[in-house]
């Protein structure tokens, strides 16, 4: 009569070396290789820190990749210590590993003792469904989606450029969206500022944007700054963000933003629009030029059509804002060629895109110096700061 499974297991356990979780914990820092032989769903619910995962059902085919050196000290564990005993026998008898132990009591005992558990970061079932089209792209995948969920992006303005950008960044699962805007929704905004709606006229733009974003994707946390960006608050607001999306409508604040972002080392994805045309570039401090390298001085007020209301084709900020959102996502993922050191000019009427090179200025008053050398009182220094727009009227 053949022996029962339980009999065989007892025999195996008497032949192999078993080790107590306390010893494994002490050995973790001494170069022992810990292998979790449980099923993937058990592994994702939590495992021993630093362990490698080789499910028992794939042990023979995958162990060599996980432990190429057969003389290494290997400890196997499962939930209770049985599957790992079987697996230890396979490694010792069939695969020629020299020093293999099975952990008694398995992960259950490890947890009962209160030892440290590593919780692998995984997407929830709902997130896997929501971001399934991202997960299918090798350039995004689970790692990329985690990067998006971890990312903090600051939008300067929930207006023409910020509205479409915020919508798509939220849909993509960018985990934190900061929005700086001290304006309220106006009927004349709705021709292009698609994050707001007719019912929200008179509501603050940050509140209106938050409502839309939360309804679209509850994964996204919205940080609201219903203030006007100025020298007194810019560093405090920018600090901690990974990327800034600049949809500012005036030159003084663009220079201020540039100086603060260089000092903090935060890349700025910048766009500007007028009429039927838009400009787009990425200013990544010290990797490429800054805004002052491109435009060392602003144009005189009569040539700066940013001071009053100007016509803009409603769809144009949509196009430019989404190009900005695309650059933001590329920067977060570290994929593709970001628009650093290049400037795109889009002409909607002609349906043409022109690209020019933007060089770092070795004599740039800001980015030719170390960030810590840029003093508070130098930031946003701008000719005729107060009088600039007054002169246009």
């Amino acid at each position, binding site marked *: 009569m053949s022996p029962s499974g339980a009999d065989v297991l007892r025999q195996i356990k008497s032949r192999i070396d078993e080790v107590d979780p306390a010893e494994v914990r002490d050995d973790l820092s001494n170069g022992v290789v810990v292998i979790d032989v449980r099923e993937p769903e058990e592994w994702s619910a939590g495992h021993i820190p630093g362990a490698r995962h080789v499910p028992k059902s794939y042990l023979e085919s995958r162990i060599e990749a996980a432990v190429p050196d057969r003389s290494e000290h290997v400890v196997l564990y499962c939930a209770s210590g049985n599957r790992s005993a079987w697996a230890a026998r396979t490694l010792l008898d069939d695969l020629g590993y020299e020093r293999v132990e099975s952990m008694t009591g398995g992960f259950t005992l490890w947890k009962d003792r209160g030892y440290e558990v590593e919780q692998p970061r995984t997407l929830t079932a709902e997130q896997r469904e929501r971001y399934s089209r991202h997960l299918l792209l090798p350039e995004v995948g689970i790692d990329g989606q985690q990067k998006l969920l971890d990312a903090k992006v600051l939008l300067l303005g929930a207006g023409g450029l910020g509205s479409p950008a915020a919508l798509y960044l939220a849909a993509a699962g960018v985990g934190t969206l900061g929005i700086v805007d001290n304006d309220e929704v106006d009927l004349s905004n709705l021709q292009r500022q698609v994050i707001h709606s007719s019912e929200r006229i008179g509501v603050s733009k940050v509140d209106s944007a938050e409502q839309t974003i939360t309804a679209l994707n509850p994964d996204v946390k919205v940080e609201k700054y219903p203030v006007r960006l100025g020298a007194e608050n810019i560093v405090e607001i920018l600090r901690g963000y990974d990327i800034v999306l600049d949809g500012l409508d005036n*030159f003084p604040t663009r220079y201020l933003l540039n100086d603060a972002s260089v000092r903090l080392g935060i890349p700025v994805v910048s766009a500007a629009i007028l009429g039927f045309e838009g400009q787009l570039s990425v200013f990544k401090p010290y990797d490429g030029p800054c805004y002052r390298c491109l435009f060392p001085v602003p144009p005189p007020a009569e040539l700066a059509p940013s001071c009053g209301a100007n016509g*803009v084709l409603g769809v144009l900020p949509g196009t430019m804002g989404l190009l900005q959102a695309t650059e933001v996502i590329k920067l977060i993922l570290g994929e593709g060629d970001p628009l650093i050191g290049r400037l795109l000019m889009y002409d909607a009427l002609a349906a043409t895109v022109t690209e020019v090179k933007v060089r770092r200025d070795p004599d740039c008053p800001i980015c030719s110096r170390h960030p810590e050398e840029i003093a508070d009182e130098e930031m946003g220094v701008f000719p005729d700061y107060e009088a600039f727009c007054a002169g246009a009227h």
Partner: protein
Amino acid sequence: MATVRIPPVLRPSVGGEKEVSAEGSSVGEILRSVAESHPDTESQLFSADGGLNRYVNVYLNDEDVRVLDGLETAVGAGDTLVILPAMAGGSR
């Protein structure tokens, strides 16, 4: 004869055109020729000392003429000059 692309803010000064053609064999000659044909552009392109205004970027095809030979940069017949002033419209 080179093509000069005119940005939106300068178009009123050239009769609304997006592009003009101008004679000359260098960036300086071509821009001078634009300024002669369209006098309103003169003060927008050139500073009092005859140099390019610092707030106007000019590109020969895709390269900033300041990293080439500035106004002396040679321009061929098929080349395009792009005039690019800063724009700031966006949020409101």
